[in-house]
């Protein structure tokens, strides 16, 4: 039997990849429901590997490319792409973004209006990443939970993990050295007057904003990136910046209702690249930074391959238990 600590997106994806290969898996989750994993619960749900390539390591782009089809196995994925925009005075930002990313094409005002009628006349040009997608991270977390349970994985909620587990996916709650936390703050709004069908990114030197449609007039707006380990609720300054940027996207968003705000701590290594780390008998899946939904599938696959190679190899197995 393989034991996993943490039922956030990393733990569930790991459980799925292991169970799919026939392993018997038990997950220990200190929280009492999927909602108790703030990094997963407050995520944006963008599956946007090419946009992330603007600042992320090329590895992130490569590992993230398979995430869209992976998630589509068990949860609705909206494949409408990402539209990247900028206010007229920050247009140099868009050129820079285009230079640093791949897999996109320029769209003009006319095409922007066709893609998103609500934005007609507001932006002269944009970048379209047609092959990107988004999902509702909460729905996805629930769907993945049910899927792994269907594969026979036992999830013990409200149960702290034992001292010794095979796989540790607890993010900042693990005691792995070299991890730091990046605080992310977000808001959820209800905007019946503005219909947007794909993820929008608004570039701005200070506050890069994204708006992800969640369906039924609900949109998620995120997200700040603060080098901080503070759990306190979203600050006024951050909310001001996020909502101010949303207002730039469309003034009618000013009439939307803020129905939720939240903050989570993303675990990251010094290079912001996630990895598997062996520590004693435990394999850590950690450092997913702002790429939990994007990269958990690839890391879980690596983990499962590593596990199955090792258990077929008697000597490796003995070494591990010695």
């Amino acid at each position, binding site marked *: 039997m393989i034991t996993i600590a943490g039922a956030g997106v990393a733990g569930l994806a790991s459980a799925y990849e292991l169970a799919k290969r026939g392993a018997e898996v038990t997950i220990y989750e200190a929280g009492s429901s999927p909602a108790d994993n703030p990094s997963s619960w407050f995520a944006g749900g963008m599956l946007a590997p090419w946009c992330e390539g603007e600042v992320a390591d090329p590895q992130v782009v490569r590992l993230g490319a398979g995430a869209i089809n992976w998630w589509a196995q068990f949860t609705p994925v909206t494949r409408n792409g990402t539209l990247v925009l900028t206010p007229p005075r920050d247009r140099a930002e868009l050129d820079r973004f285009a230079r640093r990313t791949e897999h996109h094409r320029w769209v003009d005002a006319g095409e922007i209006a066709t893609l998103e009628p609500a934005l007609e006349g507001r932006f002269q040009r944009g970048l379209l990443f047609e092959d990107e997608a988004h999902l509702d991270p909460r729905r996805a977390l629930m769907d993945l939970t049910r899927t792994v349970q269907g594969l026979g994985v036992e999830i013990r909620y409200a149960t702290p993990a034992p001292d010794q587990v095979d796989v540790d996916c607890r993010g900042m709650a693990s005691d792995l050295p070299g991890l*730091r936390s990046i605080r992310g703050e977000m808001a959820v709004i209800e905007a019946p007057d503005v219909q947007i069908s794909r993820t929008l990114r608004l570039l701005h030197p200070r506050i890069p904003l994204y708006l992800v449609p969640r369906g039924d007039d609900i949109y998620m707006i995120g997200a700040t990136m603060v080098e901080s380990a503070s759990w306190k609720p979203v600050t006024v300054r951050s909310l001001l910046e996020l909502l101010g940027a949303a207002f730039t996207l469309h003034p009618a968003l000013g009439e939307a209702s803020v129905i939720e705000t939240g903050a989570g701590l993303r675990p990251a290594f010094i290079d912001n690249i996630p990895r598997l780390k062996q520590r004693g008998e435990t394999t850590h899946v950690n450092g997913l930074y702002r790429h939990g939904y994007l990269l958990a599938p690839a890391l879980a696959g690596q983990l499962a391959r590593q596990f199955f190679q090792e258990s077929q190899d008697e000597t490796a197995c003995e070494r591990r238990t010695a």
Partner: protein
Amino acid sequence: MQLYGTDITSRLLLGSAQYPSPAHLTKAIAASGTEIVTVSLRRETAQGSGAGFWDILRQTGVRILPNTAGCHTATEAITTAQMAREIFATPWIKLEVIGHSDNLQPDVFALVEAAAELTRQGFQVFPYTTDDLVVGDRLLGAGCEVLMPWGAPIGSGQGLRNPDALRAMRAHFPEVPLIVDAGIGCPSDAAQAMELGYDAVLLNTAVAKAGDPIGMARAMATAIDAGRMGFNADPMEAREMAAPSTPILGLAELV
């Protein structure tokens, strides 16, 4: 170069924000050879301890210059400076009081007020100011021993927008360490500041947002060295007309 009695060799001061990752930042620090790195302090960072990030910075061995980035009033800046002193155990503070949210220009009135109060409290203030001579005088009067005029608005990368004003400032404050802070985009901008006789350059975005931050850190450090060496070597004066660099006398007689 001496800043508040401390000998500093590298004339590049580097900001620590906006890098793709802390790993990029530490490599950029190493590539640039900088000895002073500025760090912004936000309230939530202080309370929740951005310890992970600060530990990474401390391990590089550089001197930390905390800043009051994002403060809009003297009171706010003073409180932030006090928190910074506790966290980083240094009397140094880069004082920024933003007066306008569009171009992030300093509010020079609040700046002078905050500088006087912080000096009274024992801080050693590095004020981010404009190229205005009168404001410079007031800041020195408030106890500052360094002035850091802008080259262009923060993060704009426009280079030195008003070299004449910066030249006048150098002439007006011959004995004061002057550091161009903000507006640098390319290595040539940094070299130009040094050729004007400035003591150092402080920059962040130009390195952090470059496609290759580590390569750009090295380029900036090299440009600053070149600019300083050029200044020390007493450049020739520009002339209106051409002047032959080869003497006319002694030309071969081609018969």
